[in-house]
C-alpha cells in the first residue's frame, strides 16, 4: 500500500485515495472545434509509461481534493505531490 502525501492533509495511506489517471492531459475547451484525432487522443489515448508519471488522485476519504502526484510506475516511488491548482513543473 502506497503512502501518499496529500498537500492538504499530510501523509496518508493509499486506501484513502482513488486514482484518476494522467495529470498532464488537458481537457479541450468547451465549445471549441476539435479534430477527431485530437478528441480521440483526449478521450482514449494514453501513454503507458514506465518511470516517472504525473497522475491524478483524489483524497476521497479525506479532504476530497484532487491532487497531482509524481510517481514512478515501476518502483512506486513518489517524488512530489501538488495541489490541483499548482502547475506541474
Amino acid at each position, binding site marked *: *500500500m*502506497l*503512502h501518499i502525501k496529500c498537500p492538504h492533509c499530510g501523509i496518508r*495511506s493509499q486506501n484513502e485515495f*482513488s486514482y*484518476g489517471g494522467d495529470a498532464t492531459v488537458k*481537457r*479541450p475547451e*468547451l*465549445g471549441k472545434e*476539435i479534430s*477527431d484525432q485530437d*478528441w480521440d487522443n*483526449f*478521450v*482514449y489515448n494514453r501513454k503507458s509509461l514506465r518511470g516517472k508519471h504525473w497522475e*491524478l488522485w*483524489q483524497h*476521497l476519504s479525506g479532504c*476530497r*481534493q*484532487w491532487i497531482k502526484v509524481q510517481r514512478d510506475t515501476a*518502483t*512506486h516511488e*513518489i517524488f512530489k505531490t501538488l495541489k*490541483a*491548482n499548482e502547475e506541474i513543473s
Partner: protein
Amino acid sequence: MTQSFRLESGGFINRDKKISFKFNGKNYYGYEGDTLASALIANGVHLIGRSFKYHRPRGFFGAGVDEPYAIVQLYRNGETEPNIKATEQELFEGLEAKSVNCWPSVNFDVGAINNFLKIFLPAGFYYKTFMWPKSFWYKIYEPFIRRAAGLGTASIKHDKERYEHKYEYCDVLITGSGPSGLASAYSAAKNGAKVILAEDKSRFGGTLLTSEVNIGNQSGKEWADSIISELKEMPNVTVKNRSQVFGYYDHNMLVMSERISDHLPKTKKFHPKQRLWYIRAKEVLISSGSIERPIVFGNNDTPGVMLSSAAKEYMKVYGVLVGKKPLVFTNNDSGYETAIEFKKNGIDPIILDTRKEPQSEIIEEAKNMNINIKNSYVVVAAQGYKKVKSADVAKISDNKEELGSIENIACDCICVSGFWTPTIHLASQSGNKTKFNEDIDAFVPGISKQNEKTLGAANGIYTLEETLKDSFEKGNLLSKKITNNENKISFPNVVEKKSTVHDKFWCVPLPKGKNYKRFLDFQNDVAVSDIEIALKEGYRSIEHVKRYTTLGMATDQGKTSNLNGLQLVSKIENKVVPAVGHTTFRPPYSPVSIGAIVGREVGKHSKPTRKSPMHSWHKKNNAVFVDAGVWLRPRYYKRGEENLFEASKREARNVRTNVGVCDVTTLGKIDIKGPDAAELLNRVYTNAWLKLPVGKARYGVMLREDGIVMDDGTTTRISENHYHMTTTTAQAANVLSHLEYYLQLVWPELNVNVVSTTEQWAGAAIAGPKSREVLKKLFPKSDVSNEGLPFMGYMEADLFGVKAKIYRISFSGELAYEVNVESDNGYFMWEKIIEAGEEFGIQPYGTEALSTLRIEMGHVAGSELDGRTIPYDNSLEGLLSKKKDFIGKRSLSRKAFAAEDRQKIVGVVPLDKKTSIPEGSHLVKDSNAPLPNPKLGYISASCWSVEHDNPFSLAILKDGKNMIGEKLFVMSPLKNKVIPVEIVSSHYVDPKGERVRS
C-alpha cells in the same frame, strides 16, 4: 505410548504438565512447550505423511518454518484446518491431527505404487500425460490426482473464529528475535525509538536457544531472556511472539500475522484467533537468520534424514532425540555441534565430513569427546523405506567426483548440514537486488531499495560477535536519526567457538549402476533428474525451470530447495550461480490463513449497511429487504401468504389506482451553491440550465467524456444561487467525484461548492391519482393544487411543525410528489403520510413495485444506463442541447454513435401474453438459426405490467427505431427458454405523459 525418545532432562518444556493428543487416531502425550513435531518424535513417530507426487513416506526434516514435509490436517475445537506444519503447531490438550497426501492410510498408500513400479512422474508429467484427450481432465484425471495427492481438506463450514486487522506505525520494525534482532531492538529502544520486535516462534532468542555461547557471562538463552524482559518493560517497545512478518510491500509497509489462539485448545472469549498487522515502519531491520542447507544424496527424502540444526533443536529445546544411532553428514562445522550435543546426551554419533583435514576449535572439541569422525566421506544413499535403517557411505576423491567402495553403516537418522542459506525473502520482496556471496555460496541482500537493512545471519554474517557488533550499531544509528537521542550501550563480552571454512560440496555423485532418486525440493518431489530433463527439453530461464518442475513452489518458497536447485542448473549449464539468478521471492514468506486476510470483513461486516430513518417502520410492517448498493431497502411488504410476485403486483396496482408511498431516502443528493452553479449544471448536463427559474425542477442527463450516459436525475433551483441535485442511488458517489473533478481541475474559475447531503434528508415518494388528496391533508396551509404546485414545481411547507420540501416529480409515471425532511424527522414524516393516506387506501411500496412502475412507463434506470449506452439508445436524444457544448457532446458525433441502425430502447411483449421474459435474454430473428445465432439486442429489464396484466420488458435493440411491430424471439440458453415476442414502444403506459401533469 511412552515417550521413548524423550531425554531424562533438558529442554525448555514443562515436564510437570502432560498434554495428551491424537495423531492418526492414536493417543499420545507430550509436554507443555512441545510442538506437535517434537511430541511425535518423542513418541518415536517419524512417519507423518506421504509426498505430494510420488507418495513416498515422509518424516520430519526441520524444526520450524522451513519444514517441507510434516504438513498435517489439524482438528481443534470442532473445526478443521489444512496445511498446518507440525513443526510450528504448538501442542495443546486434546489436539488432533491427521496425515495428508495418503489414501487410504499413511502406512499403506495406493499412490506409492507409482514409486515401486518405477513409473516415476518426471518433470512436466502433468502437462504431458494428463493433457489428452481434453475431455478426460475434469471427469477422470483431476479427481484421481486430487484424491491420490490431496493437500488437506478445507472446511466447508462457516469459520466461527474471529480474525482482526490492526494498523500500526513504528520507528523501527525488527523481524526476528535472534541475536541480531535482540541487539538492534535493544539499542534502538534505548534511544527512545518506537520499536516493534516480531518473533515467529513462541520462544524468543532464535539460535541463542540452541548454541553454546556466552554473552556477558550469561548463556545465550539467559542473555536473550534478560533483554526480552527489559524490552517488555519499556513503553516505547512492542514485543510480539508467534508473529510472522510475511510480506514487505511498497513504501515500507509490512504485514505480520499474529497467531493469538492457535496454541490454545479453544480461543478465549472476546479474543481473536489471529490478528493481521499492517505496519508502516520508518526503518526495517531484517533479522530473519538463516536456514541450514541440505546435501543432495540418494534417497535423501527417507524419514530420518533431516537437517542437523533441527536435530540439535529437538534435543536442546524439547529434550527429544531424533534417533539413537545418529549419522551426521556435514560439509562444515555445524554438524559437529549437533554431534557434540548427541554425545553430551549419551548417544554415540558418527560424523561424515566431506572435508579432508578441517581444523577448528569445534572440531577439536569433538575429537576430545572421542566422537567417531570420518573425513572425506559422504553418504551415497539412505537405506530403509519408512525410516532410515542404514546408510551406504563411501570415501570421496579430492576432486569430489570419484566414490570409493561402498560401506554400509547402521543408523536410525542422518543429520545433514550443507552450510547455511540466509533468509533473504523479506529483503528481496522490498525490491532489494540481491547479490551472490562466494564465501557462503548463497545470495545476500545488496543495495537497499526501501528503508531496510539486513542483519546477522540473514546478511551472511555467521559469527556471533560480528553479528552483535553490527546489530547494536545499526539499531543505534537508525534510531538516533529518528529520535535525535543516543544512549550508548557497552558491548558485552562474547564467548563462542571458532569454526573453519565449509566445503563447497552440495551433491553426492551417483555410484556406478545405481539410479537413486536424489531430491532437491522435498515438498514438491523435485529430484536432480527432473531438473536435468527440464534443461534437456530446452527450459533455460530459472523461472521457467521452476514452473515446469515445481521447484521451490508452494509453501517451501525455496527455503530448503532454492540453492541446491540453482547449483545444479549452473553446473549443467556451465554457468556461475549468480548468472543463473534466483526465482522471485513472493509474499507470503509462510502460509497465512484466509481468515486472517479477510479479518472482520465477513458476513454483514463485509460492507457497511446503510438504513433509512424509516427502517424500523418497514421492519415492523413486514418489509422484505434487498441490498441496494450499501443501502438496505424494502423490496416489498409481505401481506399474509403473499410471495414477491403477488405483493409487488398489489403494491404497483395500488399506485396506479389509489396512492402509494415509497422510501426514496437512498437517492443521491448533492447540494450545489455559488454564483456559477447554473453554469456548472449547464456544462455537466446535456440540456439547458441557465434559465431554470427558482422553485422549479428539471430532469437532466449527465455524460462521461466518451459520450456514454453516466447518470440521470432531477435538479431543483431552491434559490438564486442554490440548487439541489439528485442522482441514482448507485452513482451518488461517482457523480460527486465527477463534479469535484471539473470544479477543481478543469474549471477552477467557477465559483461553486458541492457537497453530498444524501444522509441529511429523508425522502418519501407519494405517487398515484390520489396523491394530491394525501398532500392536502399533510399540508393544509399550502396550496398544492395543480396551479399552486405544478409538475416539476417545488415548494417549502410545514408538516405539523416540521420543515418539509416538496418536489413534484415522478418516477412512476403517476401524479407524484417527493417529500423531504431532515433525516431525524423521517420517521415522523412517514407515519404522518401513512396516517393521512389511510382513507385513500395508501400502501407502502418497495423497490420491486417501483421497478414495475418505471419499466412499464419506459423510464430508464441502472439496467439501461449500464455504462454502454448513449442518450439516443435510451430515447433521451431530445435532451441534447444543440446550442451549447457539454461534457461528452463531442463524442456523440463518432461514427458508431451516429449510425442509422444504432441500438435503441424498445418494449417487448410475449405473443402469448403469459410467458415472463428472463432479464439478460437475447433477441434474435430466427430461433432455429445455426449457432452462434446473430444477436440483435438484449432484455435489460422485465416486469409484469399491472396496467395491461401481462409480461412486459424493456430491451436495447439494434435499429430499435424501425423495429416497432416486428416479431422476434427471446432466447435464454441459461433458462432454456425460447419465447416469440412482439416489439412495441418502450412507453407501454400513458405514452403522452398526461398523468404526471394531471
